[in-house]
């Protein structure tokens, strides 16, 4: 079928070919450019190539490192979720394409689930789009709705893809930080981090196309209150702005807090895309299924992006997810329901992490939701002098140092900030606690040894 031998003398002839073709073009150009003048990237991705995950995941790949970095559970997903998938994979027809905007049984299950939270019925075909992870939903929403010259408000720190996605769409991100009130004596909580309403209002102008909201928040773990969401909703309505609400940690909310959907606020449904994730819902990040829910006049543009980018998502995973949802939809008030049992399980892990970090002398910000915890690590006075690349923010150096010397990895929080404000958050690092007990035990061992060493 292939003519492999074709390549036998190719190296030779290619070199010759290039010379004749490019000889006039390469004059005076550095060696790297001599292949071609035209074969370059599209401008939309200029400067978007660096990625914190690529770098730090590589660092943590060393098996001797306890990885509390990337937000991926190392606990097993619920048994019934795995079983459903195994059964489904045996059905022949489910190995082929399904409906592009979402496998019919999955969008139906999602509509049924979310109708419990919205006052209105949700049209499974017109108001839901199934995507390649919540990441894909974010991309579809931003590509579908954000144009060149638009402004998009991003609350800092932010899940790191928001900024490059907005830039790739040709728009300008406008940042506003969450600011913490001083906390004396008591524990520092994610709810101490708030937006200044005046400051937020000042970020809106006639070019503002959208605001990206993330609740429960990654990396701080903040769960926005009704009042806070009302401020955002009012500003969105007043300024005719869309809201892209990333709610992937919607079920992971701890005692005393409640997750609210901004789309259910008066006047917000028609301007909000709400994004959810199967990976976070059922601890199956590797399935890469997410969804966007919103009014058809917004969703249809996301659908257009979808039909021109991936067209459809994997069929067996969608069917398995639908069936898993039906199990839990039927027992939403039951403590067995994964939406209830997972946060219970994680709350224990969260408290354990809080104690651990406190025992090390840190003052972690106790999260109300999500599966991350951040702490100011500058209190540790780690000696980072042998860390090269002094231009890096403190937390980058610290995480590299900790990974190397303590075999414990985390993610620097300044990765969740834009270039100009990295300094504001460079003392924080993020730990992920959706980890099995043995992983947390290993982390505890490391930290105990660290304490002993310090004293």
């Amino acid at each position, binding site marked *: 079928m292939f003519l492999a031998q074709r390549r036998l003398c190719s190296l030779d002839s290619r070199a010759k070919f290039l010379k004749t073709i490019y000889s006039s073009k390469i004059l005076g150009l550095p060696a790297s450019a001599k292949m071609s003048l035209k074969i370059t990237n599209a401008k939309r991705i200029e400067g978007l190539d660096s990625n914190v995950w690529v770098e730090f995941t590589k660092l943590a790949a060393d098996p001797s490192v306890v990885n509390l970095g990337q937000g991926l559970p190392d606990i097993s997903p619920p048994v019934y979720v795995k079983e459903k998938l195994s059964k489904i994979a045996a059905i022949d027809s489910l190995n082929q394409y399904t409906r592009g905007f979402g496998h019919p049984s999955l969008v139906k299950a999602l509509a049924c689930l979310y109708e419990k939270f919205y006052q209105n019925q949700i049209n499974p075909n017109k108001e839901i789009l199934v995507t390649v992870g919540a990441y894909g939903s974010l991309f579809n929403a931003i590509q579908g709705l954000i144009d060149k010259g638009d402004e998009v408000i991003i609350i800092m720190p932010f899940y790191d893809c928001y900024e490059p996605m907005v830039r790739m769409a040709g728009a300008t991100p406008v940042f506003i930080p969450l600011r913490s009130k001083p906390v004396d004596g008591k524990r520092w909580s994610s709810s101490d981090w708030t937006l200044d309403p005046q400051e937020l209002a000042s970020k809106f102008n006639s070019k503002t196309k959208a605001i990206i909201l993330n609740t429960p928040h990654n990396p701080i773990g903040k769960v926005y209150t009704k009042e806070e969401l009302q401020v955002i909703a009012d500003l969105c309505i007043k300024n005719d702005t869309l809201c892209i609400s990333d709610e992937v940690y919607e079920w992971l909310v701890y005692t005393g807090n409640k997750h609210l959907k901004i789309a259910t606020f008066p006047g917000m449904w028609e301007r909000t895309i709400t994004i959810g994730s199967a990976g976070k819902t059922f601890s199956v990040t590797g399935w890469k299924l997410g969804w966007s829910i919103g009014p058809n006049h917004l969703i249809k543009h996301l659908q257009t992006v979808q039909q021109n980018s991936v067209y459809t998502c994997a069929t*067996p995973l969608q069917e398995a997810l639908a069936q898993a949802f039906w199990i839990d939809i039927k027992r939403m008030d039951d403590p067995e329901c994964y939406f209830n049992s997972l946060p219970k399980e994680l709350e224990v892990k969260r408290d354990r992490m809080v104690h651990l970090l406190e025992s090390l002398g840190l003052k972690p910000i106790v999260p109300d939701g999500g599966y991350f915890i951040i702490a100011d690590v500058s209190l540790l006075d780690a000696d980072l002098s042998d860390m090269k690349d002094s231009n890096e923010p403190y937390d980058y150096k610290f995480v590299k140092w900790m990974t190397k010397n303590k075999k414990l990895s985390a993610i620097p929080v300044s990765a969740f900030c834009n270039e100009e404000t990295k300094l504001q958050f460079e003392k924080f690092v993020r730990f992920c606690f959706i980890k099995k007990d043995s992983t947390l035990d290993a982390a505890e061992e490391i930290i105990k040894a660290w304490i002993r060493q310090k004293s």
Partner: protein
Amino acid sequence: MKKWKGQKSCVDRRYSLWKRTCVRVCVSAGVRTSCLQVKVAPATVEEESLPVLSQQTWGSIPLPDGTANSLEKIANAYPTSSFLDNGISFGFAAEVLLCFSGTLTLELCVGDPRPGLRAIFWPVFSSISSAPGGEVTSVPRLWEACSGMWQPSICIWPGSSRERRLELLSLGACTRLGRGLLSEKSPIATPPTFCSLCLQFAMAKRLQARRLDGIDHNPWVEFSRMASEYDVVNLGQGFPDFPPPDFAVQAFQLALSSDFMLNQYTKAFGYPPLTEILASFFGKLLGQEIDPLKNVLVTVGAYGALFTAFQALVDEGDEVIIIEPFFDCYEPMTLMAGGRPVFVTLKLSPTQDGELDSASNWQLDPTELASKFTSRTKALVLNTPNNPLGKVFSEAELELVASLCQQHDVICISDEVYQWLVYDGHQHISIASLPGMWERTLTIGSAGKSFSATGWKVGWALGPDRLLKHLRTVHQNTIYHCPTQGQAAVAQSFQHEQAHFGQASSYFVQLPEAVLRSRDHMVRSLQSVGLRPVIPQGSYFLIADISDFKSKMPDLPGDAEEPYDSRFVKWMIRNKGLAAIPASIFYSMPHRKHFDHYVRFCFVKDESTLQAMDEKLQRWKTELRP
């Protein structure tokens, strides 16, 4: 400018169109009564300064006679408008330009600034103080005044001939116009489809990004829907209706049941065992050292690889050469990236009498192809074996393409998803294996087509690092990862293929043999009713010439603008129980009218499906007998 009695509207640019206000507009139209009433009332008043205009009514506006007749034409004149004409009467959804502060009157302007059209209703604004009487504003002025906002739209009021009211909710109105609300709060019996139309106007800013202009239509949606509505044998969409091979199914099962960590994220650019096996497998075929980390990117299907390639490499204003007929996504993907598709058509060279037409007779005209290359040409999309034609490009043809790409410093995006499906002793040649081409070629492949598992959505792009690094940037900002288990299953399946390469036990040997039998079966069967298949040398598809039908029954139902093949397929679905895809959708708009006499059939189908096809064709054949 024509004047209309008692009505006036003027657009005053003093108003800041962006400022908010919360106004609910109720428009009611008497159907068949030739009158129209307009009411403006504030809904939730958030601005104290807003005067309450509650229930102010402007009496009746006389409509000219025969208004309904001329309306259907307007749809084409104004692309943003939507029409649903029930032939009885009409109404409209006013463009909601309700973003005002200060005093506001909503006024309906009756009349048409364009000659030849009548009774278009433009909701426009004027200061309340301006007295009635004056000129109808012109459409351009209105648009100018509303620049940056949606253009005025019109639509027809659907439903039966009784009075209806339409509520348009402005931005601040605090209710979602949904089914529940409609039945409770207002006497509108308008179907939900219409409601969404209203909602569409609820945001004054343009909603969708400009990159989506003109790419929202997708022909598959319509034909897939029709195929599911009628009792048909579906030979339309290109997916196998038989299972993947046992070893692939087992590999998938293993991925699901072995390591539970396969339920979690893997490496962003590909599950390591998969990128490694792809590198070694294709490295041998292409005669190229392939680095799994630098020269391989795993994507969400080959479709995802194509999208990533266009986004990464095609910039605004760049030209992309596409060979017609082409897999239909190349054009919108180019457009979405801001590029300009430049089409070059495969030309059919005449065949001997009585000989069956062959896809290999469809050829590129070298002079024409060369003429399409310009200094703006960034890429050429090659698809071999080609969909929908089934053409396998010959070595000479590929050399022509390759030399032009090199001469003009152009990237070749080579879609080779059907590479294993090649028949009659033809050979698939990857253009990347030609001298000097690896450096400028992206070779795109598909596990779905390789292992008959389209639903797994695993594809890949292979190429030099200097191209792939840009694809990786797009990938990490679009989806970041692909699902893990599918990748694990594909990795295992390729290991199987590597071990059995070239042997009778290889799926890449077995599949084309099996599919070849289906092809020949279908070719024979289609001929029995007078469809004239063009024999494909590769792929899942063949196109059949329907020009005999076109001359015998030219007046199939459908829109006059609709290409013949599209009408033929609909007719065939309804009357003959067979679904196919019109070939004109694989052509650029201007060329569709020249290629409206082919339909595409997919033959990668189970034996039972082909038998069902035979039964349908048999019945069709009986009907043909006098």
